[in-house]
């Protein structure tokens, strides 16, 4: 990969570390800068810490923001409860919404956080903050969660894309503006997502019948000859980016079957359900099984139910319940759950009260999410809200705590320094925010 940033190695190929985390130069310079990593990992621990751990992550991105009352934090018998009530779960004393009967049976595998409390109240800002981990501070562009994980844990030489975004709705509303943003931030485009969706595929990934395999490869070799000659003569960064994109074509085409749902057993497809979200979740499992590191499954933004909240959630929550149940159960049965972190979350919660349209509006102050798998202790419900769900009364956690938790669960140092030329120092998670220890294995 000619466009890959130079890496400094510290002994073996296993231990490559991104150069921008170090001072450029010799090994001794690199070692010197390690000492400034906030004491978070000591020099002897470096090799171990940076080793590709084989951990993976699937983010079920519940864009638009689901209601905590109709999912993880029901308030039966109170004014804020919806009509659905609560059911008992496999965890004694713990109830969740009656719309989630399947997840109720695997609560011992899930960690639920009922005490999320964040700031941004509008979708765009909240999506940005909850997928990057912090609010923007231009000109620094914080890489999105998937880019950080792909860079830290991914195998970039693999033809299988390390960071995949699956979304059926490329024309989504607020989410569209976000999608157009710079996802990989300072890490660089090679850590950005491969986007697929709609027909569950990547456009133009199949070779045309009009050209043979051999000719397709030969003409690409010819293209590469001219294009790299230009790149070298011009010392052109733009041409390098162009050539890097073409360099990935062959590898992506070779894993085209990964993006073809027809190759998956019909029984699996039926078990997950017919909708795009369900099929994408199955595809995420398939991609993770075959070498992807981070798959973000988005679904437009159907959860933003300012109108007819109960009717909408009555459709959406059972679908989520089944998908999360199938995914966690599948990963567990395949022995992959210990290495695969599954997160199901939106960008905030919904109001305890209903508006005039019988909708619930945005509510970042007190909301819930769920995680399972790699690095997570199952059977935990962290934090609590008051009787009506208005305020967090125990175990308050914000986006920084959440990201510290996710990184810790995956074995990624949460407070590592991002020391970039010409910018103030940034950290992977700012302000030394603590992970939610209770949910970590």
């Amino acid at each position, binding site marked *: 990969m000619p466009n890959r940033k130079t890496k400094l190695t510290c002994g073996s190929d296993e231990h490559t570390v991104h150069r921008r985390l170090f001072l450029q130069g010799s090994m001794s310079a690199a070692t010197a800068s390690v000492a400034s990593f906030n004491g978070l990992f000591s020099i002897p621990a470096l090799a171990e810490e940076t080793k590709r751990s084989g951990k993976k992550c699937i983010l079920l991105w519940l864009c638009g923001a689901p209601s905590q009352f109709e999912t993880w934090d029901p308030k039966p018998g109170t004014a804020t409860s919806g009509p659905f009530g609560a059911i008992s779960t496999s965890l004694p004393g713990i109830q969740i919404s009656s719309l989630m009967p399947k997840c109720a049976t695997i609560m011992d595998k899930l960690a639920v956080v009922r005490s999320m409390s964040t*700031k*941004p*109240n*509008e979708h*765009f*800002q909240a999506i940005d903050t909850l997928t990057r981990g912090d609010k923007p*501070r*231009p000109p620094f562009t914080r890489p999105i969660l998937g880019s950080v994980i792909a860079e830290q844990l991914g195998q970039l030489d693999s033809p299988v894309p390390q960071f995949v975004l699956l979304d059926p709705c490329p024309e989504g509303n607020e989410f569209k503006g976000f999608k157009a943003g*710079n996802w990989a931030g300072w890490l660089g*485009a090679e850590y*950005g997502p*491969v*986007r697929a969706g709609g027909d569950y595929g*990547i*456009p*133009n*990934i*199949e*070779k*045309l019948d*009009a*050209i043979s395999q051999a*000719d*397709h490869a*030969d*003409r*690409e070799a*010819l*293209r590469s*000859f*001219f*294009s790299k*000659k*230009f*790149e070298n*003569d*011009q*010392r*052109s*960064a*733009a*041409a390098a*980016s*162009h*050539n*890097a*994109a*073409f360099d*990935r*074509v062959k590898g*992506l*085409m070779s894993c085209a079957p990964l993006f073809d749902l027809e190759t998956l057993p019909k029984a699996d497809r039926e078990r997950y359900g017919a909708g795009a979200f369900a099929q994408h979740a199955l595809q995420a499992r398939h991609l993770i099984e075959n070498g992807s590191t981070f798959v973000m499954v988005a679904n437009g933004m159907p959860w933003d139910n300012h109108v007819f909240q109960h009717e909408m959630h009555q459709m959406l929550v059972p679908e989520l319940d089944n998908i999360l149940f199938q995914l966690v159960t599948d990963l567990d049965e395949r022995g992959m759950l210990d290495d695969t972190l599954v997160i199901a979350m939106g960008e905030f919660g919904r109001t305890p009260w209903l508006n005039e349209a019988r909708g619930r509006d945005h509510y970042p102050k007190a909301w819930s999410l769920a995680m399972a798998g790699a690095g997570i202790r199952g059977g935990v419900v962290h934090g609590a809200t008051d009787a009506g769900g208005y305020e967090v009364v125990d175990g308050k956690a914000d986006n920084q705590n959440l990201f510290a938790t996710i990184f810790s669960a995956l074995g990624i140092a949460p407070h590592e320094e991002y020391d970039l030329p010409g910018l103030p120092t940034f950290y992977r998670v700012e302000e030394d925010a603590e992970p939610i220890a209770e949910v970590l294995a």
Partner: protein
Amino acid sequence: MRCLLALPLVFFAAVVSAADPSLRINALVKRSWEEQKISPAGPCSDQTFARRVYLDLAGRVPTEAETKQFLEDGRPDRRRHLVDLLLGSEDHTQHFADLFDALLMGRAAESVYDQRTTHGWRKYLEAVFRDNRPWDEVAREVLIARPENKEDDGAVWFLYERKNQYQAIAEAVAPAFFGIRIECAQCHDHMMVDEIKQAHYWGLVAFFNRGTNKETPNGPRVAESAIGGFSEFANLEGSSTPNLLTFLDATTVPEDRPDKDEKQTETDELYVASDVAGDPREPVFSRRKRFVTQILDGHPLIAKAMVNRVWAILMGRGLVHPHDEIDSMHPPSHPELFEWLSEDFAASNFDVRRLTRSIVLSDAYQLDSVRPNETLPPESFAWYLERPLTAEQLARSVQVVMRGHFQNDAHVVRILRQQVLDVLPDAIEIPIKDALFFSNNNAFDRFVRESRGDGQLLQQLLTYESHERRARRLIETAFNRPADDEEVRTIQAYLESRNERLDAALADVAWSLLTSAEFRFNH
């Protein structure tokens, strides 16, 4: 208001037009090189200049005949002649209409492109650049959106296409005419840019929030109500503020505000009939008109926004970068040059063509495109910054190469503008999906393979007697320069091994040139 402004402008115009603005640009850019001890790249060759300026001004690569004609022009000021030729061409009109459509309206589905054509927006944009209309007038026409002449009907489409979505309108007006982005100020005063307040976001929304799209006998119009549009916006702390008619540093436009519980009533006295029969009546107090006369007219950002954008189009990067964030967080790389160019632009009656011409005839535009040393920052403009062709530049250019002529509504234009979206990207990152598109898209592949009609490239190549001649022609046509021996040998070898299916092999070679970086970028 307009009359008051006109007097000093006329006076200035007489003074500034005497000097060659390119010389002033040269002096100020050179001074910054000297101050920073920068050795710029050398001047580019005529051959390079031809391809470059055809792309930047005519929106396509030159044909071989056009390149030849320019190279054989013995006049010492042949570059100036070429620039003037191109600036007066219909291709220039089409290219700038393409650019400003993407910049002002954004990329869209083909059905939306069709609407922009049907409802006159495209025709209006073309007229703006064909007739070199003063840019401040264009801004007024688009924002008042009450066309006085039938041929300016399309001016309403800027507002109309946004379908009464007042926030979308405000978020489009700010970058389009003021060169700033205000989205950040929706929920709070801009965190990083002190001068952009939350009140400005909601103020700008309020100037447009009495509009309603109307189908009239004259076509789409944006009617305006004389009442309503009062609300309060809440900041993150929850305190609320009335949405007064205010924007940036301009004085707040006074307006009677009803009490909270007071209901305003519609009366005919609040309106006057339109001068144009069949158009919606106009409110006596028109917020849109107030915006134009009391905020927009004479606002220094109108000139600056356009100067910075045209500079970015031609130089690969704005004097302020990103080009539409002219705020206190993004200082210009060349403050004096930026000020002077903006004043000159305003004083020349917002003459876009004069601005364009003075930039492309400056020395900095005509530098070689290889960065002289790795440490130089792009904002030094010490070399010509390479930039990807826009979808339309690319679509026209592949037609010129493969077919010898082009159509602006060809199928290849439509497929490329749905694929290659960015115009003036903040940074150049070629997405993988584009590489996949060029490698495997059926329509693009067929366009290349089927360029074998009479007089088209593949057909002509077949008539040649040697692979060497084919190789040289391919390089010359695609890259507008002679082939070197290594390139010729490589192509020869490729063709030699495929003599039995030369047709397909020639298409392969053409494809490899069209998809190489040398073709994909202007340099």
